[in-house]
Structure formats: C-alpha cells, structure tokens
C-alpha cells in the first residue's frame, strides 16, 4: 500500500496527482471555492504569472535565469498606455509595448550569450535599469488610460470567459508545443542538459539563448499589456517581485534549476497550485502576512518532493 502510494507520488505524473488531490480537498473544505465566479477569479489572478512562466520555463530549462521579467512587465505596461494615449491608436501602443519587451529581452540575450556574462548578474542589472526607465517615463506616477477600448482587453469575454484567460490558455498551448515539438524547444532542453556537448553536436547555442530571452521579453510585453488593462493604468511600480513568483511556479512545476528538465504540464500545475493556495487563503480570510509563510512552505515541500523523485529515478 505505502509502496504503491510512493510510486504514484514519485512517478512522472506525481505532481499532477498531488494537484488533483489538493484541488479536491480545497473544493470540499473551502466554502465558495468551486463556483464559476471564483474559478474565473482564480484564473484571472494567475494570468500574469502564468504567461511569464511560459518563457521562464525555457530560460530555466536552458540553465539560464531571468530576474528582469517584473520590470519588463511594468515597463511594457507603461509603454502600452503612453503610446496609445500619444498616438490615439491602441494597436500601435500594443505593438510598441511588445517591441520594447522584445528589445530588452534581446539585449539580455546578447549580453548573456555573446559576452558570456552570468545570466543572474545581467538580468539583475537590466531589472534595475528597466524599472528605472519605467519610473522616469512617467516621473514615477501612474498614467491613466485615455481610450475606454483599452479596458476592453481585460474586460471583454468570449464564451463567458475573459480574454486574458484565453490568452493564457493559448500561450500555454503554444509554448507546450514549442517545447516538445520544435527544434527550438528540443535544443533548449539539450543546452540545459549539456551546453558544450550541444554546441559540438551542431546546435547554435548562442542564437538559441538569445531567442529564449527575446521571446521572454515578448511574452512579458503581452503580460504587461493585460496587466495595465486590468488595473486601468500604467503603473511604474507594478509587478514588483513577479520574477520570484514565476520562478517559484516553474520550480513547483518540476523545472530543474540545473537545466535540461521542464514540462509545460508541470508548469501549468505549478502556476495553478500557487493560484489555488492564494485563492483558498483569501476565501478563508487568512491575513496576507501569513500567506507569505504558506507560499514559502509549499515551495520548499515541492522542491523536497522533487528531490525525492529524482533520487528515486536515479536509482534505475
């Protein structure tokens, strides 16, 4: 019995099993949890983390790291709002935001891949530079949105489900596909597994890493736009600490910080576990201060479980 339990928990799909059990428990025990309204609210609350986690997964899988995501999200939100206010065209604003995100990501990638500066240091630097840019651009103030159509990005619904959730789902699908079914995805995992061997096998390691960071920038741009639309303004102080939530979600989802191991399903589960924990604690009126502790404990437990699992696999 215990052996079988161990097998399930430590197997490939262990995390999914735990997620399902946790979900069932929370549904049964927390009042008002399993309602349409709350479910949509829960998903809305994980949109930013979930979107950014898509590409953070690639970054971590290639043995890299990106701390600048929170700043890029805030900066892209500012750019989206200010550019659409200035030009009067929302489309131009969105494109400008994504372009800015992509540019920052590209710079990250070039510095890391070509100049061989440690990813942690590079993105620690760009994190501060970009946050600075966001603050300078509006002199530290929030910028309101002129056109009401901009709100509609976050408010509009399709088949009863808000647009941001659709965007999240589509990105999950796209990046899941990219990871498993494209040369780019497989090369990413190979680089994380052994960068030098990958290079000698003909993988263009530098280019792949630059692409990963550039994509990360694009995705942060999208997340920034949706966030700005939801909070109806460009906030230079938005998304502070986002990088840590995103990395936590990825690690919870079984992505290895040593590179070479990542699954989209794992990351989705990781994002949802974080969302459910927060949502359930809110419903139970647990004060925010305690929530930090709970989140930390969940992360530690997940990593411990992962450790047990890899040593169980290593015994083969």
């Amino acid at each position, binding site marked *: 019995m215990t052996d079988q339990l161990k097998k399930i928990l430590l197997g490939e799909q262990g995390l999914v099993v735990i997620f399902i059990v946790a979900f069932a428990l929370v549904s049964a025990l927390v009042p008002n949890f399993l309602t349409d309204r709350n479910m949509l609210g829960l998903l809305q609350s994980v949109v930013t983390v979930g979107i950014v986690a898509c590409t953070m997964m690639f970054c971590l899988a290639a043995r890299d790291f990106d701390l600048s995501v929170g700043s890029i999200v805030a900066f892209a939100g500012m750019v989206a709002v200010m550019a659409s206010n200035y030009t009067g065209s929302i489309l131009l604003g969105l494109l400008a935001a994504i372009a800015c995100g992509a540019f920052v990501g590209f710079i990250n990638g070039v510095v890391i891949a070509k100049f061989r500066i440690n990813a942690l240091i590079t993105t620690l630097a760009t994190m501060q530079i970009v946050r600075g840019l966001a603050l300078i651009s509006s002199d530290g103030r929030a910028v309101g949105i002129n056109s009401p159509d901009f709100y509609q990005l976050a408010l509009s619904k399709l088949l009863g489900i808000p647009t941001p959730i659709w965007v999240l789902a589509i990105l999950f699908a796209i990046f899941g596909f990219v990871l498993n*079914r*494209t*040369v*780019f995805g*497989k*090369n990413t*995992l*190979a680089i*994380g*597994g*052994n960068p*030098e*061997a*990958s*290079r*000698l*096998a*003909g*993988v*263009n390691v530098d280019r792949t890493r630059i692409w990963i960071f550039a994509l990360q920038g694009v995705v942060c741009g999208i997340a920034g736009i949706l966030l700005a639309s939801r909070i109806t303004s460009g906030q230079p102080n938005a998304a502070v600490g986002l990088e840590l939530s995103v990395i936590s979600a990825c690690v919870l989802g079984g992505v*290895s910080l040593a590179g*070479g*191991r990542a699954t989209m399903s794992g990351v989705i589960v990781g994002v949802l576990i974080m969302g459910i924990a927060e949502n359930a604690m809110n419903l139970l009126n647990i004060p925010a201060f305690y929530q930090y502790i709970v989140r930390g404990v969940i992360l530690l437990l997940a990593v411990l479980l992962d450790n047990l699992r890899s040593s169980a*696999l290593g*015994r*083969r």
Partner: protein
Amino acid sequence: MSFLEFSRITKTYPGVKALSDVSFGVDKGAVHGLMGENGAGKSTLIKILSGDQHADTGDIRIDGKVQAYASTRDAFDNGVIVIHQELQLVPELTVAENLSLGRFPANAGIIARGRMRDDVGAKLKAAGIDLDISRKVKTLSIGERQMVEIAKAVMLDARVIALDEPTSSLSSRESEILFALIDRLRGEGKVIIYVSHRLDEVFRLCDSLTVLRDGRLAAHHASLEGVTRDQVVAEMVGREISDIWGFRPRKAGDVRLKVESLSGAKMKTPASFEARAGEIVGFFGLIGAGRSELMRLVFGADPRTGGTITVDGKLIHATDPHGAIRAGIVLCSEDRKHDGIIQGRSIEENINISSRRHHTRFGVLNRASEIATAETFIKKLKVRTPSRKQDIVNLSGGNQQKVILGRWLSEQGVRVLIVDEPTRGIDVGAKSEIYELLYQLAGDGMAIVVVSSELPEVMGICDRILVMCGGRVSAELTRGQFAEKAILAAALPDTKTPDAIAS
C-alpha cells in the same frame, strides 16, 4: 573462506537483472581482476561493495563478518574504498587538504596546518607515494590526481580498495607508477579489486580473476597460471574472438579531407594532413601531443587562427561545429561525458539532436520520423537498452559511444568522421563492433580519422598512421611500414628512449 567474500549477490533494476547469484572470494594481499563487457554487472557489483547500492539478496563478508552499509560514507568508515573513474577531489585545495578533508586536525576549529602536513607527509612516505602535498590539486596531472585518490585510501587504512578503470586516462609512465603502488599495497595485505578492460594490465597485475557476463559469473580463476588471454576474452563475450581488429584491406579513393597549415590558440605550429575516401587514418601520440587540439580545430570546436580546410576540393569557410557538420565533418570527442552526451535526456534525443533539421517542416518536428531514426540506429549499432526513452546516463560507456556515433550517422552526408579515443573505457566485444562499423563506413566512402593512445589499436585498424609529438606531426607511415619502435620513437620527445615505454 576468503577475506572478502561475495555470496549469492542478486540485484534487479526495473526491467534489467543486473546481477544474478554472483559469488566469489578474494584473499588478503591479492589483486583481484574484475572483467566483463559493458553491462556485465561490474559497476553494479562495485556500487554494492561501496554501499552506494544495496543487493536484493546475498551478502558481502569481510573477515567473516557480514557488511551492511547504509551509505558510501559507512563503507568508507569500514575500510572499503572505491576509486572511481571520475575522481572526487577538490581542485582548489592542496593535496594535504584533500587528504585531510572531513578529518582536519584542528585546535578550536582552526586547522593545525603543521600537524596536517606532518601527518599526511608521514603516511604517504610510509606508503611510498611521492607527491608534493603543498600543491593545489588543480595543478596536478590526471595521473598525479589518481595518486592522490589512492593516497586517500592509504590515509584511511583501507582494508579493501576497488579501482574502477584506473588507467583509462593515464599515460604509460603514469600507469607504471600506479602499478608499483598497487604492488606495494598488495604487499601490505590489502585486498584490491581491479576493474579493467585491458587484458595485458590484468595479466600483469592480478593474482586472481573473475569474469562477469550478463550479470552472471562467467568464470572465476583463483590463479592466472595457465589461463590464456583468448580464453578470458571468450569468457567475456561468450564466444571466440580470434582477431579483435578484423582488419580488411580497403581501397582508398580521392582525397576527401585536406588540412593545410592549420593553427589555433593551442596549436602554435601549423599542421597539415589529408585523408582519402575509404581510408582510415590514425593519429598516434602521447597525451598532450596536440592530436585532440588539431581535431578540434578541424571540426571548428575551437577557433582557428590560420590555415585552410578543404572537403572534396571545396574550401570550408565555417569556423564552428554547426558549419563543419553541414560541410560533412563530424567529431566524436574524447571526453564523452563533457563533450558528448546530453545528460538527463533520452537516447532518442541524444541521437537526433544534430540532425533535427532533417525531421522538420517549418521548424515543427515530425515525431514519427524522429522515432524511426532513433530506432534504426539503436538497432543498427546494437545499443543495449530497454527503450529509446532511456536516459543516456544510465547506459554504459560503450553504449553511450554507440549513441554518439548514431548521432553522427543520422546526419545524412557525413564525409569525414573524426573519432577521438573511440574505444576508451569500452570492452572488447563493443570494441570490435565499433571497428567493424568504422570499416563499413570507410567502405561506403567516408574518410575516417582515428585518434588513439593505444598503439595496437591504431596499428590494428588504420591504413596510415600520423604520429604527433609536441604539437607537430613527427612521422607518417603507411600500413606496410608499421613498426612499434618506429612509431614510439616518433611519438616520444628526444629525451626519452622508446624502449623504456615499449616494453
């Protein structure tokens, strides 16, 4: 009953019976050889001995007492020490510090450096190990590092010392020093388990021998008197291998690879050579002679600073592996672990990593085509694995090598195959399979360059040998001119005589 006794050891991994019912004993003061093909169960047995893994049934006794170790540390404390192929030393610490690690002599937490040096020095002197203990390990040669590992065993007064392929990265001189040390340890009454693929070493060093095959005891020789090499090889592979080289005369075609005055940061003297279609060219030399460096330049693994590379008359402009592969040049590096395998990924992915562009449409992979390729090469190269999904780190060295060869063969249009130490750490059976494969590829018109430190190997399989010494090509011999002494003479710097090493 012997001092060290394995009795009825059985160990099953999911899907594989790694060891079944293995029993044998080793006496005190004996060097016991442990041989067998890849996957025969040698490593598993050593892992069980070291406490890293646990037998399903059966036990190990030392001096009549059953040993049950919870961990390698536990085995350590009980005087059982395994020296692995990958050395476990801290490069930034000195020899003395490495040897005292975990048990520093200290006063109130401050290391008593003088006492440490005296202790270590005295013990090493007593054991006849000649090492400068104040040097940092990172400045030592691989041979010297191996000495430090063995010194560790001496420091701990080990009762049982197991050495796993200790000479695989040593030069002949370093091997000699190692053998002398093993002799001394034997004299002190230690039990030494010597795992090796090299028959000549085993015959030279060992008092007794156990051969494993497919997880079973294939043979146990309490003494090596009257045992022949052919007999042991037959016991290992379960059949007779009369000539492991199996050389067949070939016809060389036009020049495929032409390297002219190639130089790089680690290759100061420009080097030139060529290889013809259907020809196997050997590069022999001592470790550090510049062979691997030259091949890395040809493959674009390191940037070249001068010279030209031509394949089939076409100048190659690419200066990175990516471009070299597209021009038809591929390289199997000597350091499989660091430069070859992608740890944590499946056999399938390790085969397909380079040739993925052949399996895609608009960047999207065709899974069926990838799977078919992987299966084809697993079968063609006889990779021993339960599934293509197996993580490559779980394979033995020979099987990993086959996977990497599969990686290159799945590249359509390879014209030049460079293999650097293709059979290092690989057993006899897999060796002849790899040679056979090279012959086949040469027969198909590939130009093959073999870098090897094993003279019998280059003499056995090559059509032509280039000898390197001190970063330059010092001799070139065609098959009719092959002679051990001439080749060694060209490989050695002037100060040494060939006889010293040839013997």
